[in-house]
Structure formats: structure tokens, C-alpha cells
């Protein structure tokens, strides 16, 4: 009936609609404002410990910058988790998913479009925020005589943190696909990202196994520095298990 109609459902249009949907949420703008503020705060707080050459000791410039960027992304990830969760959970506020699915009955296409938007937004926001964070930390690093790193090294360190942030956002998205609720999504993801590594670290000596490497936050960082390590299947498992469970749930359950 509609084969001759320019009015039709396509993936680029779906992505454009999801982008509009996200940016018409007030919580999205709260996250956009919070992300650079948190990133700058985290980077500056970390850079303070390197601002005095006497206190910094024999820490290399690379270690100092790595620490500053990691602190920046470590705080920034909270805003990204909220953003990724809200991108999906907003559909379940008052049952808006029903209207969405009437317009877009291909449920997996809808999820894919949302995932694309979350990935792009998380990449840009993380990149911008971490760059701002580093800029905020620079005066303190200069004060501590931390030598500037070569462009290639900087780019690699920067890429690891941005990549980590994107994986965290995708993990939050996958978990929300399963739990369909903002509070549960944010709580579970922040618990997994912020606490699990510490908990597993405590049990390491008991089982005589590097349990810590199984934590999402450990693997999601390591996968960017050593992609062929055990981190890859660990990250894949953390992302795929909730994503597949959520997708099956979405397809099989009544809206």
C-alpha cells in the first residue's frame, strides 16, 4: 500500500526521531550540563595531588596525566549512566512505549536506533567533558612541573577514557533494557561500575584468582589498552547478557 510513498519508516529517520526524543527531555540537558562540570571537578581534584613537585615525588608525567583523565571519566560516568538509562526508561514513564511502538512496531530497530543515539551522544559528551577536565587540570599540572606528553600518547590516553565512558553508557542502556526503570537502572549500573571492583578485590586473596579483572570497570578500561586480553570476552558478557535478555523481553512481552 505504501511502497510508492516517500512517507515511510527508515533507520536514519528513526535515529533522527530518537535524537529529538532524547533532547526534548529535561533530564538530558541536566546530564549535558553535569557531565563537563563533573569531569572538570574530577580532573582538577586529581591534579591537585600533582600540583606540588615535592609531594608528587617520582610520579612520571604519563602516570600523572593517566590519573587525571581517569579521575575525570570516573566522575563523569555518573552523568553518562543517568543519560543512557533515561534515554530508554523515559519510554516507560506513563507507558509512552505504547505510542512509540504503534509508530515503530519493529522493536529491535527501535532499540538499535536508541543505542546509536546513546553511543554518539556518550562519545561526544565524554570527549568534550574529558577535554574540558584536562584543560581545567592543566594549570595545576604545570604548577607541579608535570611535563607535557607527546600528542600521540595524549591521544591514546584520551581515547581509553572516552572509550571506557562509551562502554559504561552502553552497559547502562543494556541493563535498562532489562529492568525498564530509571531508579533500578541507575542503581544497578552504578553499583556494578563503582562498587563491584572493590568487592571483588576483597575476595581475590580468598579464591587466589584475579577476580577484579572480571569487574566491568576493570575490563572496560583494559579492553582499550589490550583488546586481545581476557577483557574482551568479559566486557562482551557484561554488555550482551542484559542486552539479549532485555531484547528478548521486549520482543516477547506485551507492551
Amino acid at each position, binding site marked *: *500500500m*505504501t*511502497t*510508492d*510513498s*516517500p*512517507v*515511510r*519508516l*527508515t533507520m536514519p*529517520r*528513526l535515529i*533522527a*526521531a530518537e535524537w*529529538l*526524543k532524547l533532547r*526534548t*527531555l*529535561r533530564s538530558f540537558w541536566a546530564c549535558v550540563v553535569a557531565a563537563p562540570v563533573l569531569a572538570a571537578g574530577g580532573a582538577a581534584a586529581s591534579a591537585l595531588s600533582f600540583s606540588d613537585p615535592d609531594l608528587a615525588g617520582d610520579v612520571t608525567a604519563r602516570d600523572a596525566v593517566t590519573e587525571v583523565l581517569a579521575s575525570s571519566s570516573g566522575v563523569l560516568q555518573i552523568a553518562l549512566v543517568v543519560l543512557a538509562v533515561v534515554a530508554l526508561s*523515559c519510554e516507560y*514513564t*506513563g*507507558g*509512552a*512505549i*505504547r*505510542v512509540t*511502538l*504503534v*509508530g*515503530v*512496531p*519493529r522493536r529491535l530497530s527501535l532499540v538499535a536506533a536508541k543505542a546509536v543515539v546513546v553511543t554518539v551522544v556518550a562519545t561526544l559528551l565524554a570527549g568534550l567533558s574529558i577535554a574540558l577536565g584536562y584543560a581545567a587540570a592543566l594549570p595545576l599540572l604545570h604548577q607541579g612541573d608535570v611535563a607535557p606528553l607527546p600528542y600521540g600518547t595524549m591521544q591514546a590516553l584520551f581515547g581509553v577514557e572516552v572509550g571506557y565512558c562509551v562502554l559504561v553508557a552502553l552497559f547502562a542502556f543494556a541493563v535498562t533494557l532489562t529492568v525498564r526503570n530509571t531508579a533500578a537502572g541507575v542503581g544497578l549500573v552504578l553499583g556494578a561500575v563503582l562498587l563491584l571492583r572493590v568487592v571483588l578485590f576483597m575476595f581475590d586473596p580468598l579464591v587466589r584468582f584475579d577476580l577484579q579483572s572480571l569487574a566491568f570497570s576493570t575490563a572496560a578500561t583494559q579492553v582499550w589498552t589490550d583488546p586481545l586480553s581476557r577483557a574482551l570476552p568479559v566486557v562482551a558478557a557484561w554488555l550482551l547478557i542484559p542486552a539479549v535478555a532485555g531484547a528478548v523481553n521486549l520482543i*516477547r512481552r*506485551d*507492551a
Partner: protein
Amino acid sequence: MAGRRSVRSVLTVIEVHGLTKKYGAVRAVHDVSFRLEAGVINGFVGPNGAGKSTTIRMMVGLDRPTSGHCLIDGRPYARLAAPLRAVGALLDVEAIHPGRSGRDHLRILARTHGIGARRADELLEMVGLVGSASRRVGGYSLGMRQRLGLAAALLGDPAALLLDEPANGLDPDGIIWIRSLLRGLAREGRAILVSSHLMGELAQTVDRLIVLGRGRVLADASLAELVSRNATRVVHTRTEQPDRLELLLREREAAVARRPDGSCEVTGMTADEVAVLAHHAGILLYENTTVPASLEDAYLTLTRGNNR
């Protein structure tokens, strides 16, 4: 909008075949089949819990049927290239994100199909929401949400409309408005299914009625057919000897109900039969008329005992 419908939309047909939905042991919808033709307004009536909303939700793929299917021009809803162009659906008006404006709600839906923002603005004007278009939907009244839901259903200029209780929350002017709107949309060649649990709401609007009770189709017929098949004919008669006439009528197994003004409501005999009987008995009749059967009566007859 008149004149913009193309020939292809006139060919649109929606076929529902044996739709059944079970929730555990409860059968909400059982073997429901019907066909919606272009240009016809179909009323979808039944008591609360009859399965109307569940049926519509299955038609647009929101609920998975236990068995059966719905085809729109031969395809399931989920496989349509442009679902909003084929079917406009108004289901749950509460299912709109309360934090967005009415305009943004429409623009998001429009964008999925490449429909221009201007179309959203046209529809906001048509449903009378221009002044509130920038307000958050959370602050809308039920009637405003209904109007916004209607605008969303019309966004793709669809060939068919599935409207679940669209008059809920509308004021009398709004109800008159929606009746004329539906009439105009049907004249443009659209197939329309409009549900309600209130027969009176639909009586003046629809061409056909599909009556649902306890999840089953109790009737699927034109209004005239439905009334002639199901409404009980009543003869209103007034005489100087009501007691004697009542006795005679009851002897012939007619049912007689006495009214406070002394007149009788007779069922089981025609007005002619009553007149002949009275004439032979020498009873003078002041009045003897057949009361026109109402759709409401036909509906009540059909659905009696079919409330959940």
C-alpha cells in the same frame, strides 16, 4: 484534508482472523474475526472488559495474540513499510511522556516516517491545541490528551483509523466535533474502527457495529440489521378499559407493562393485532402505536449476561 486521499487508500482493508488472547486461564478475547472496509465507520462496542482494547492492541502489534492474526492490506502491522501511513491508532491517552510538549510529541512521531513538522502544526490547529502546543503534556486535561492522541493518529494521513474510546473526557462540543470529524474522515475513504462502552455515543456516528461480549463477537452488522434482529418491538396503547385489555392481551401470551398514566406497553403482539383484539372485544383505543426500536435496546438485548 478532503480531496487529498489517493485511490490506493480506498482499497485499504483490515482483516481480523480468529484473534484470541489468553492471560493464564482467562480468555480476554476469543476467536474474534471481522473486516473493516474503506469509507465505513465501524462501531466497536461492548461492556467494560469485553476485550475491545485488547483486540485493538493486538491489531497494531502491541499485544501478542495467543492465536489468530490481523492483516492490513494483506500484511501484519509490524511488516508495513509506513505503519503511520496505513493505520492511525488512538489507544491509551495517558501513554504520552508528561515532560514533553504536545508539539514535540507529534514532531517525534512525525520524524520516524519523514513527515514534516508543518504537518504536526496543521494537526495541532485542527484539533484545537495550537495555544497549548508548547505546554508540557503533563499539564493537559483528559480532553486535551484525547485531542493530541487524535492528532497523533492522523499524523501519517492514514488510510485506516483505530480509535479506542476517543470521546472519553471530551465535553459535549468536543463530542459533536469528533462525530463530524469521523464522518469527514470516512467520506475521504478511510476505514474507521471506533470503540466505546456507551452505545449512545456511537449511535449517531457509525455505519456498522461490531458488538463484543466476554471477548466474543456477539454481532457484526449494520445498524438497521442489528435493531431489526435484536430489539424487542413494543406497542404503546391507551384505552378507556386498561384492565380488561390487559387481561385479554395476557390470555394471548403478550407481555403487558402498565404505565403510571394508565397506558400499556405491549410486547409480543403487533399494533395491528392489538387493534383487532380491542375491536372484537368492543374496547375503544385512544392510542395504539409501535414504539420505534432503539439501538440501545438492541445493544442491551445482545450484551445481557455478557458483562464480566
